[in-house]
């Protein structure tokens, strides 16, 4: 992810890569292969933060390092692009929000769909009433492969010589060298945040951007480890239900999330917004299917005796005069598709937005508060799943209600 971020960053004009940090030596070697031998490389990120010639950092470590490095970087005067989820624990959220406020630095969280023209289009359509009153949002991410299930490759030269194991562990519990836990860190609660932190966060970010919602009031999640039993301690099937309260012009609605890493048919992800007058889906593009509501309610009178049926129909037709069937009376069922230009990359756009803010000092949309409001309910989903508990969440104050 970090190298991908850097490619997108370097595609922006006037952005130069100065230094790279990783706990595995091989990745520092790789960085020099990619970006030149004059690159400064280190196993200790603090050597980067103390340099005066660096304006901004991309934090793409395992999740358990996100908050700490992001805060230290802002305190060292750097602007920060931090991968999602912004934090590993809910308790780290307030510190990030406070640090951003105090330092005045730009902090953008790396859920790129917040800068996507596809999501902007979806937002515009919903704001314009394309589907009437929203009542339900479903979002899903189905995968069915080893790589999709985080079985990332281990380098054959992984050793205590090439890896700074203690630095990787950081505040996580001490344990002896086991490279699997570094290279597949998403599989372990000590370093990652499971499917909720990796993928629910994207779905919350997209949802909050499109609807203007700031978070649910209730969180319940369930699921289990059904297939990828490779020693991981996180589920590979996870579903969540979330209650969103009415806010501004947006009515109360329900959210249903699903991630399945054992989807025996296909790999895909998307959103479905159901409203009183249509359905909007978001995937690679946006689709709106409109269904105008019925012009009369219809009737169920077959169980009434004949005179009562006749009286019913007389009154019904008084209230709803029979429209003579004409071509005009055929209800329009439209489906509109909006596709981004070929080759469009929201990842590039998200980095463009970040560096624009770095230059203009204008705040980004996906700031620490936005990141907290997306990561909070996602991380709460993990606790709900493992503790089998329903949680009340205060989306305004960003804390668990007791």
């Amino acid at each position, binding site marked *: 992810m970090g*190298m991908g971020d850097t490619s997108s960053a370097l595609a922006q004009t006037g952005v130069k890569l100065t230094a790279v940090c990783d706990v595995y030596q*091989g*990745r520092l*070697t*790789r960085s020099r*292969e990619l970006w030149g031998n004059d690159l400064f490389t280190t196993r200790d990120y603090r050597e980067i933060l103390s340099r005066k010639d660096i304006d901004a950092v991309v934090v793409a470590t395992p999740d358990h390092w996100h908050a700490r490095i992001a805060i230290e970087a802002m305190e060292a005067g750097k602007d920060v692009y931090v991968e999602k989820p912004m934090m590993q624990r809910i308790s780290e959220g307030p510190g990030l929000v406070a640090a951003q406020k105090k330092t005045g630095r730009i902090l953008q969280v790396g859920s790129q769909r917040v800068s996507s023209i596809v999501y902007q289009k979806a937002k515009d359509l919903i704001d314009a009433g394309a*589907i*009437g*009153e929203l*009542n*339900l949002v*479903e979002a899903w991410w189905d995968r069915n*492969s*080893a790589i999709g299930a985080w079985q*990332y*490759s281990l*380098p*054959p*030269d992984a050793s205590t010589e090439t890896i700074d194991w203690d630095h990787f562990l950081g505040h996580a519990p001490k344990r002896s060298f086991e490279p699997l836990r570094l290279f597949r860190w998403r599989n372990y609660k000590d370093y990652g945040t499971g499917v909720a932190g990796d993928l629910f966060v994207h779905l919350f970010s997209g949802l909050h951007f499109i609807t203007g919602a700031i978070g649910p009031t*209730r969180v*319940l999640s*369930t699921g289990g480890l*059904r*297939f990828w039993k490779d020693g991981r301690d996180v589920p590979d*099937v996870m*579903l969540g*239900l979330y209650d969103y309260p009415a806010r501004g012009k947006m009515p*109360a*609605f*329900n959210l*249903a999330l*699903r991630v399945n890493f*054992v*989807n*025996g*048919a*296909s790999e895909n992800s998307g959103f479905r917004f*159901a*409203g*009183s007058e*249509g359905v909007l889906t978001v995937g690679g593009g946006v689709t709106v299917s409109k*269904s105008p*509501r019925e012009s009369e*309610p*219809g009737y*169920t*009178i*077959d*169980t009434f*005796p*004949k005179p*009562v049926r006749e*009286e*019913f129909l007389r*009154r019904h037709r008084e209230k709803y005069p029979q429209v003579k069937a004409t071509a005009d009376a055929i*209800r329009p*069922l439209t489906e509109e598709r909006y596709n981004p230009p070929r080759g469009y990359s929201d990842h590039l756009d998200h980095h463009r937005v970040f560096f624009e803010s770095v230059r203009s000092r204008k705040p980004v949309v996906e700031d620490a508060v936005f990141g907290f409001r997306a990561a909070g309910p996602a991380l709460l989903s993990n606790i709900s799943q493992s503790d*089998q*508990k*329903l949680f009340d969440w205060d989306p305004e104050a960003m804390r668990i209600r007791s």
Partner: protein
Amino acid sequence: MQQNTISANDRIRIALIGCGGMGMGDTRFALTVPGVELAACADVYDGRLKRAKELWGESLFTTRDYREILNRKDIDAVIVATPDHWHAPITMQALAAGKHVYCEKPMIHSVSEGKPVIAAQKQSGRILQIGSQYASSLSFLKARDLFRSGAIGELNLVEAWLDRNTARGAWQYSIPPDASEQNIDWDRFLGKAPKRPFEPIRLFRWRNYNDYGTGVAGDLFVHLYTGIHTVTGALGPTRVFATGGLRFWKDGRDAPDVMLALIDYPRTANHPEFTLSLKVNFVSGLAAESFGIRFVGSEGVMATTVGSVTLSRTPRETEPGYSIGTFAKAVQEQFLKEYRAKYPQANPSADAIRPEKTERYQPPASHDAHREHHENFYRAIRTNKPHFEDAAFGLRTAGPALLSNVSYFERRPVLWDPQTMTAV
């Protein structure tokens, strides 16, 4: 226990208790079965008794009091198609009176009624079949065969939904213009429900009120559970959580019009542990009603509706793939050497293209699950071999469905013991 006295060629005389849309529909299907005759009808609204005579002849015995039907010796079986709060009381009395019973779903109005119904059936020795016709649908029986044969590998998730978007779909049934205290036996409608003054909308749209109906859970989740239990052989979940809201049809009802549930199924001999996700949306934004159940497994997905089963299978990948772009060039080369020693490169050939099949199974056009379900009921009476959708099956589907209502209204997850069929 009483002896079943009906044999293969005997006529079966039935009565209908509750002559609304569902009851009259049931009766039409019942009367297509050879040897089945309708003898009597009961309803609390006189208009429906008149309608029954219009449809089935003036000689039909009609009454507002179902007990007059249970007392008749010439009636072998009854269809109970009343509002939900009357299902269990009438079913138990009918069994005790020696009648076979076809009881509409859900079998019960509250979970506590379940065990007494099971006991009543046992004691009577009569056939009790619950009216969720998916249990007789060839699509679901085909899906069951496919599931048992391992077509989708290891099951991990089931999703089921029913989306509607019309006034009638949302239970805004018509109210007869002549409805009055003269032609409606209001107290008999109320039964065990709280006393309240005459208000015909509560009778004709009883599904909208928890006092008589069971909301989307009792009307529709029950069907979804029936389909899922039929296919998987599951006995029931251990935990139920439901949420939703009344979003659109704010006509005075006290039941939600959007309801979602997440349900945990434990491993049994018939299936691995899986998660069930249920959805009913009466404000779906769709032009047409949509219904389906998706069974997701490690090697395929099976989608079932009343009209078909679609099986999409994807064999699992033959090698895990790799993500080595961040390793140094020399390490990448070393990795690939070791990887290819373990997973020899298959020469790309036409054979190497992975088959991704979708198979679709459709029952014959003549098959109607609802009619089949009635045929199965009368076959069960004649052969004295009950259909599997019996009282226990009915509690195992209605129990967790009704617990969704408990979870929704009490705003908490609810635990259930599927073996003993009791709320924990």
